[in-house]
């Protein structure tokens, strides 16, 4: 019982802490449409995704059944996730002036729609989508991926 309470309490702390923790990381995009059960997982905690919330490099996004979410990155890349999907943003750099450009994402499972943005235009070699079976190189622009 005590164990259960302390677990609950630490979970409560995590949820309470999350907005401040998120605000400290430089954001790289926003969630646009959110439907059903969608969570963001980063090194500190797990938070429920709400529309217009921001995400950062290193975040993992996971959807439940009958759920979906759209991500708009600051370089105009758009990724939409269907039900039971999971992806991790491994690296995202968008600094065209210094030519610091990178976009590496792992698609772990589920269905995805991808519309490439400025990074794929400026530095196509820096865009990589990794699935368990292959790596996709993106020269533009719109495609669908299913990982099961």
């Amino acid at each position: 019982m005590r164990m259960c309470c302390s677990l609950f309490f630490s979970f409560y702390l995590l949820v309470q802490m999350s907005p401040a923790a998120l605000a400290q990381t430089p954001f790289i995009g926003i969630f646009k449409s959110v439907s059903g059960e969608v969570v963001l997982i980063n090194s500190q905690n797990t938070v429920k995704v709400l529309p217009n919330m921001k995400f950062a490099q290193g975040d993992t996004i996971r959807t439940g059944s009958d759920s979906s979410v759209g991500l708009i990155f600051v370089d105009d890349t758009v990724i939409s996730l269907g039900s039971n999907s999971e992806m991790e943003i491994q690296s995202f750099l968008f600094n065209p002036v210094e030519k610091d450009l990178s976009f590496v994402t792992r698609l772990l499972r589920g269905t995805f729609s991808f519309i490439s943005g400025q990074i794929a235009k400026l530095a196509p070699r820096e865009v990589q989508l990794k699935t368990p079976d292959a790596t996709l190189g993106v020269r533009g622009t719109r495609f669908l991926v299913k990982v099961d």
Partner: protein
Amino acid sequence: MPKRIYLLIIGIGLLVISCCPQNTKVVLIPEPGGNVGRLTVTNETGTVEMNRAGEAIVVSDQKSAPSPPEIISAAEINADFAQVLAVEVSQPEHFVLYFKSQSTELTAESEARLPELLETISRNKSQDVSVIGHSDSTGDYQYNLALSKRRAIAVSGLLIRQGVPASIIQISSHGEKNPLVKTADNVSEPKNRRVEVVVR
């Protein structure tokens, strides 16, 4: 005894789920404007390129060659992707509006683009509109920072008057430090006297 049988069935079920080879399916589809891009699929066996609308590839693991690219029907695409296509978020659209010199008044050409901007906000059901003010390098830094901010506020005022909720607009201003056309200091450059609107 029946309990064991249940456990056995569950066990076999889990085994079937976990043993099944993972698959990656990739389908190249046209942009809303009709343009078709290009993709490469690479694993330990090499690289396959895709460049035709509706072209699909299946890869079963890192050590197996991808299936040859094959154009599949809309029905086949929908069988796997109907849900994600239905919720697909559209790409942000950018508008650049220009101003008269030293002024928060739009040029006639840019004013004429407002209906298109408003139509885009409503079509995309946007909940996030960024309005970013800029200036040219005529005048000092602080003056231009203030001028670019007034320009952004002027554009957001025009949008709000046409029914765009103020709550979805985010205003920022860059002054003279983010020019479209690089110039020396104190140069009047019409292309730098602008507000960029990003509709997400």
